[in-house]
């Protein structure tokens, strides 16, 4: 998996690409835990994300928890498979999906 980060001021966009699973999520997890200070709007773009596993969901949950305290987090461009996973796991209830 690869991800691109575009930061402008307090707004950050993370573009995800490939598979976010057990092996790849720790990298994104570490990034999110260390880089969100001063960010009040986080956008996670999933146009190129093919798959997300429960470990990936955990990273999103962590991010959501952090952002809930300092602003908002938005998920954009989910594919059908990803949306379905969000639906199944109930993440669609707690995440702001646009």
């Amino acid at each position, binding site marked *: 998996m690869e991800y691109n980060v575009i930061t402008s001021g307090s707004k950050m966009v993370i573009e995800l690409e490939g598979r976010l699973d057990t092996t790849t999520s720790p990298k994104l997890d570490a990034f999110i835990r260390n880089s969100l200070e001063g960010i009040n709007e986080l956008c996670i773009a999933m146009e190129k994300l093919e798959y997300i596993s429960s470990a990936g969901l955990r990273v999103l949950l962590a991010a959501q928890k952090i952002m809930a305290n300092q602003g908002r987090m938005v998920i954009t461009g989910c594919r059908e498979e990803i949306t379905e996973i969000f639906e199944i*796991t109930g993440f669609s209830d707690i995440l702001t999906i646009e």
Partner: protein
Amino acid sequence: MKKIWGITFGGLHSKILSVLLVFLLAIIGFTSFISLYKSLTLKKIVEKSGVEQHDAIENVSGDTMYQVIEQSLTKMNDLRAEKLDDEFTEIEGYIKMLRDLAGELFENADTLQPATVPLPDPDNIDQLEVHLLYEEGVDYQHSEYVGIVGNMTDTMVSLVETNDKVESCYIGLADGTHVGVGNGGADKYDENGKQKPFRVRHRPWYVGALEKGDIFFTGVERDAFNNSMNITCSAPVIINGRTVAVVGIDIVLDNIDELIAEANSDTEFVFIVNNNGQIIAVPNNNSIFQLEDSDTAEDLRKSDNKELADFITQALNEKTNLETVTLNGKEYYLIGTPMKTLNWALISVVDKERTKAPTTHLLDEINRINADSTTAFRNGTSKLSKITIIGIILIILIGAISSLFVANRIVRPIESMTDNITGKSGNGAFEMKDLYRTGDEIEVLAKSFDKLSKDTVKYIENITEITKEKERIGTELSLATKIQVSMLPHIFPPFPHRHEIDIFASMEPAREVGGDFYDFFLIDEDHLGMVMADVSGKGIPAALFMMISKALLKSNSMLGQSPAEVLEKTNELLCANNQVDMFVTVWLGILEISTGKLSAANAGHEYPAIKRADGDFELYKDKHGFVIGGMEGSRYKEYTIELSKGDKLFLYTDGVPEATDAEEAMFGTDRLLEVLNENKDASPEQLLKNVRASVDRFVKEAEQFDDLTMMCIEYKGTEK
């Protein structure tokens, strides 16, 4: 590599040695070639210069000798000729004086008293006397001429006495008489004591002067009496056109002999040629020329030897240069000076070969010196060669020994290191020794080995530690796996006495321990609790989270609460101390066995698949709640399904639809339903096996990525 005397052949020793030897041999070869070439060149130069020197000396010396001889000989010859000529000129003076005196006497004969002249006295041997000689039959006692010339005998005596060059003098008279002043003696008498007749007018000097009409020198003539060799100078006395007398002087030849003897040596001699080209004086025992009578002597001007003939001819006319003339097959230098008085010539002869003697000697000397120096050069060269060969051998030996020494210094530490490392000496662990502190690459190498050795030891220790740790963890993990597996109900059929239900379940973790779990338990006699859950993540953390989740779910269920209540309660408990944002998706169902009524709630878990007795497996899209442990205060909706006899419920975790092949294609729920429906009436156990086999076929050799957990319940209804 063979080892002899501690030297390893084929190793660095022999390589260094070979390099050095090749280098040495190259240098030696090069210098040898240069010195050989130089010495050959030098030899050529020496030889060439020897020849050139020889030629130069020969030429220069020859020229010089020629010049020296020409100068000295010309001068000497001239002096000698002049000296002799002077003597003859003197004699000529005397003869003129006698002639004039006799002439005067004859002219004044009238006024003179006739003088008498005695006959020779036999007792006057070797004593000067005046004597009268006469031809046979001449009346000497009445000779008028004798009376005239008898007046000049005193003068003649004094001439002979005062002049040692004049042996005798005389007057031959036309009437056949002869008045002479000379040594007397018995030679003028015969054995009978009778005076010998003297043929005055036939004597060569008389005839010569008469014929010439002027002063005449005879050749070398035998003395009429003592048979000695004489030269006579004569002159006619002419009165009124008639020759009345001929005056003559016998010249002592001792002077000429003396001169000739004086000039005679091994290398040169002098001879005199008269105007007829005849030799009149030559050293005795001369190998080339002999003195002969004038009537037999050869005219050298007509000699068969053209060179000699030409030379003599020239010499009688003018001074010659130094000429080379071959005599008796040998070359001689000849130089001639004419003697004007007599029209003779004095000729000096020098052996040309002998004149070369100094040159020859010089050349011999030089040749000897050259030969000596060549020998010395050769000896020196051979000595030098020997020294050079010894030197070369020494150099090679020293070079070999020192290269071996150097090689040994290089190789020994390396060998020691090798032995050290391979365990031939020591325990195989590298030890730093003073031997390796060479200050060069070897020390660097040794330090590297030292570091490598220490690192290796450390690494081995680490590896051992890690391996131990790993083994420990492995043991613990396998233990954990066992614990985890034993935590899940794994004895089938689990409730042999309950014929209403048939349950089969399996869990295969992707690693030793997994995050998936299933559970089923009887809450009471009529209620069966069923759990299918998936903890986010895998491994030990997931397993631990699973354990607590499982325990909470079961214990909450056992309290008799509804599925939604159980989930909400469990969520609260899990969220309370969740530091790691872990969560678990849970499907929880409680079946009332007696009625087939299934109450269930879904916390973010996969849709269950339900097969009605006469239908296919289909996904039951129930209402989902949020995952458990994710957020406090989550609420869950509950739903109810009435199960009839033969209905089956298939539960699974996302490991099944998300099983991925090598091309990253997912198995998917469609394939799941397909494989379930292929043999939909099979027992739960068989259904699980079918799904499992299908998943295996799908993923092929791709690694199992996620836990694979499945559970299937068949409701068989209550017994009638």
